[in-house]
């Protein structure tokens, strides 16, 4: 791949890759590191990819693997029994206009990692369930299950954030009022 092609690839993919990394990693700096590391790997190994149309999924898959690898070094990866997670019906619907991007990223980060990766790939880059299954090397049924239940969990988290924000507004306003009068 020429320098120009590489730059075009970076221009197209660095922002979505960073956003994917941001939902996985602990901080913005970690997400930037993951993005950078992914492109380093592309620079070293990308030429081995025969099909250029697979470059995008290669980058996302590589970033996810780098994240897992990094995390394994930090702490032993806890096994998450997703089947034991609560499977509440979706009865809540947050007012999305009242939530900003930060709140959505925070809510995604609060989800168990397996939900997080599937949901972010689905939302961020509009990957199909088949593509996600291929990228994360999990069965299609598992992807559907994680999407279904992950969305329910995400809604709950967003509702909680919304309610929390609303409480903050109620409690702060009188204080402000009092301060003004004092």
């Amino acid at each position, binding site marked *: 791949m020429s320098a120009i092609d590489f730059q075009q690839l970076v221009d197209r993919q660095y922002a979505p890759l960073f*956003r994917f990394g*941001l939902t996985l990693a602990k901080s913005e700096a970690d997400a930037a590191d993951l993005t*950078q590391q992914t*492109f380093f790997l*592309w620079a070293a190994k990308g030429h081995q990819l*025969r099909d250029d149309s697979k470059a995008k999924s290669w980058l996302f898959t590589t970033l996810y693997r780098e994240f897992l690898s990094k995390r394994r070094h930090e702490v032993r990866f806890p096994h998450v029994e997703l089947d034991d997670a609560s499977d509440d019906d979706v009865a809540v619907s947050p007012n999305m206009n009242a939530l*900003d*991007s930060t709140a*959505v990223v925070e809510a995604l980060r609060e989800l168990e990692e397996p939900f997080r990766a599937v949901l972010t790939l689905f939302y961020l880059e509009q990957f199909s369930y088949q593509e996600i299954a291929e990228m994360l090397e999990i069965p299609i049924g598992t992807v559907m299950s994680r999407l279904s239940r992950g969305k329910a969990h995400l809604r709950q988290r967003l509702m909680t954030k919304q309610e929390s924000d609303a409480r903050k507004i109620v409690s702060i306003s009188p204080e402000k009022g009092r301060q003004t009068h004092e």
Partner: protein
Amino acid sequence: MNNQEAQFVLSAYRPGGQDALDPAFAEALEQARRDPLLERWFNDSIAFDRAVTEKLCAVEVPAGLRESVLAGSKVSRPSRWTKPFVRWAIAAAFVLAAITGSLILREAAKPHLAAWQTNALSQVSALVEGHAKFDAQSRNASELVAWLRENRASAVQNLPPSLERLESLGCKTFFWEGQPVSVICFQRGEGGLIHLVATNAFAPFNRMGKSERKFVQQGNWATVTWRDGASVYMLALEGSRDQLQSYLL
């Protein structure tokens, strides 16, 4: 399919409508059209998905990340000459060029045979360097032979007994002058690889005697070509003629 099952399936439906023609969603979509409650849930779900996508795509990327990636990749990209793989590939290219030259000189009277050998070595080289992929992979060579026969690609009648004991990696087929040619790659017990190329004994090989074995040793590469009935075989390895000879016993 009940509504709960339909909701499960429709959770994977992308809000942009890209999955409208995916048959996996057809039944659930049809059910949503028929059932107002499910339809309401689906519309709400799509609206939620769109909103999350918008919020996520609005996340700002740190200033300077793009420049950092571009600059970092430049300095981190290993030098082409220091990468072991590239060093090996360059060395292999020199060896192949030398073999090609040697074959052309030695086989001047039989240009077609030399051309076939050169072509076969190029295919082997492409596989080893990762420029070409196996058509089928198995550690069991008999499975590869069966696969080649099923695909009418093989001239492999019998594997040399010494190769039967080795673990295979995979096989590839290609055509040379309209004739199918197959390559099977094996792992040698002492390390390294050995490759068996096979094709039908057509015109370029007519002059080859049944017991004739044509060895070519050039640099680190050794090849031997022989005819067995209606097939022609070539073995190639990085090593000496003696090492190659041991696989012919």
